[in-house]
């Protein structure tokens, strides 16, 4: 009888997986299968497009990203849209942090009315679809309070994400040990002082990882404001398509642009997560 190579923790020989499994999980075979699946998808969409009589015009795409003429280098429409997406998400995120902090503090205030108001707000925002929220902010609140579509989109995204952010903040604040509150109280600190000097500085390490995830989430959900025609990446894409009918190329390009931006953010987020992971 031939002994197998590996021995388990209990000291028993590990049974090797059957040959068929070993064949399929070996690296070269996996790569071949992967390439096969990807090319099958690409091929079928290409032939599908072909049979629709679709006229691929990839050569048109670069000019929407950048142009280089005698006037010099210029960003194309899609890049301008991307810039708008980024500034929009960033502004909305800052506002969401402010609202989120207020809601979290209301909820933790211990005042019955504060807690109830916060819970009502959270339940409303969490149980209404984002798309409906966008319409509400633009078509209902917009005329009432007289603001434009850009403001509507920022407010809407901020309110939607503030609900999630307030939960992150609340969890972070609750994660600080009870003894810290007591120690801060016993040296005579007022509630704002306790939050500012003792509790919030300590809860940041609990909050940072989910918060960076929230930034990524914000950039993704910002695409929805294209329904009220705010000139961000998705909207500009739609505009180009209605002019040129290059739906396939433009949507692929936009997906890839989002993917690149969000991948960069996600890598940043996971770095932050590694640094601040609570070890004790």
């Amino acid at each position: 009888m031939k002994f197998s190579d590996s021995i388990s923790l209990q000291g028993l020989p590990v049974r090797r997986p059957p040959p068929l499994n070993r064949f399929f999980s070996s690296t070269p075979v996996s790569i071949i299968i992967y390439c096969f699946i990807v090319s099958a998808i690409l091929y079928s969409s290409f032939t599908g497009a072909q049979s629709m009589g679709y006229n691929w015009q990839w050569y048109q795409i670069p000019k929407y990203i950048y142009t280089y003429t005698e006037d010099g280098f210029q960003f194309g429409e899609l890049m301008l849209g991307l810039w708008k997406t980024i500034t929009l998400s960033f502004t909305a995120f800052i506002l969401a942090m402010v609202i989120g902090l207020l809601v979290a503090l209301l909820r933790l205030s211990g005042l019955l009315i504060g807690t109830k108001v916060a819970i009502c707000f959270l339940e409303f925002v969490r149980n209404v679809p984002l798309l409906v929220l966008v319409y509400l902010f633009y078509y209902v609140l917009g005329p009432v309070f007289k603001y434009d579509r850009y403001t509507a989109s920022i407010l809407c995204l901020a309110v939607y994400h503030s609900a999630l952010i307030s939960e992150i903040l609340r969890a972070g604040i609750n994660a600080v040990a009870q003894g810290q509150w007591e120690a801060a109280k016993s040296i005579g600190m007022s509630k704002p002082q306790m939050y500012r000097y003792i509790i919030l500085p300590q809860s940041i390490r609990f909050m940072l990882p989910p918060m960076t995830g929230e930034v990524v989430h914000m950039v993704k959900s910002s695409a929805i404001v294209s329904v009220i025609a705010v000139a961000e990446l998705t909207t500009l894409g739609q505009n180009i398509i209605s002019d040129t009918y290059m739906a396939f190329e433009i949507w692929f390009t936009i997906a890839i642009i989002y993917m690149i931006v969000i991948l960069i953010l996600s890598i940043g987020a996971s770095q932050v997560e590694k640094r601040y992971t609570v070890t004790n």
Partner: protein
Amino acid sequence: MLDMLPIIKFESVDKFYGNFQALKDITISVNPGERMVICGPSGSGKSTLIRCINGLESHNSGRLTVDGVEVFEGSKEIIRLRQEIGMVFQQFNLFPHLTVLENLTIGPVKVRKIPKSEAEIMARKYLERVHIPEQAEKYPAELSGGQQQRVAIARSLCMESKILLFDEPTSALDPEMINEVLDVMVELADTGMTMVCVTHEMGFARKVADTMVFMDEGKIIEVAPPEKFFSKPDSDRCREFLEQILEH
């Protein structure tokens, strides 16, 4: 004697946690400069009693006055009052994100509004007093338990309070570190500070206490000066308890 008005005064104080009565009709007072040691089995309400003094717990009925101010739930005075009452906890509760020096100065600077430079001089003086002046720049996690507790004592001293409360200050310490903390506490007792201390360290109690208090099931069973308390306590319950913890 006018100057002997009690600085802490409990009058028929009751405290409930839901249906459980943690304090039953507590009446006791502490004079300025008095050193009181409270002992008793766990769950007897001694921690609750001491935490009522600076309003970390609020009592449900009766009257509690500290330094001439009535303490009750929602009192506006309590924040100012807490500056006069230092507290040392079983679990130290140092601020982990601040250095030792910052732990000591944050109260004086942010609460008492003392200039930072002045607060640092004071902090170093008190670190000297608890015998760890060389640890000022470290973070709490870098210190041993005994050192952390001495920092916590220095932190409450920095508030220059009139009263110091100790809630089982040595119970979370390794045995070899207990004495370094008790030594500091004995030195403090010699300065004439008003101290209320919940502890099972009977050697310490014998050395410093003016008054010994024994509690059981939320009631004060015995109040006596240490000579009498350790030799012939009135209640059987107290004698049993002392026998048990002095056996070793």
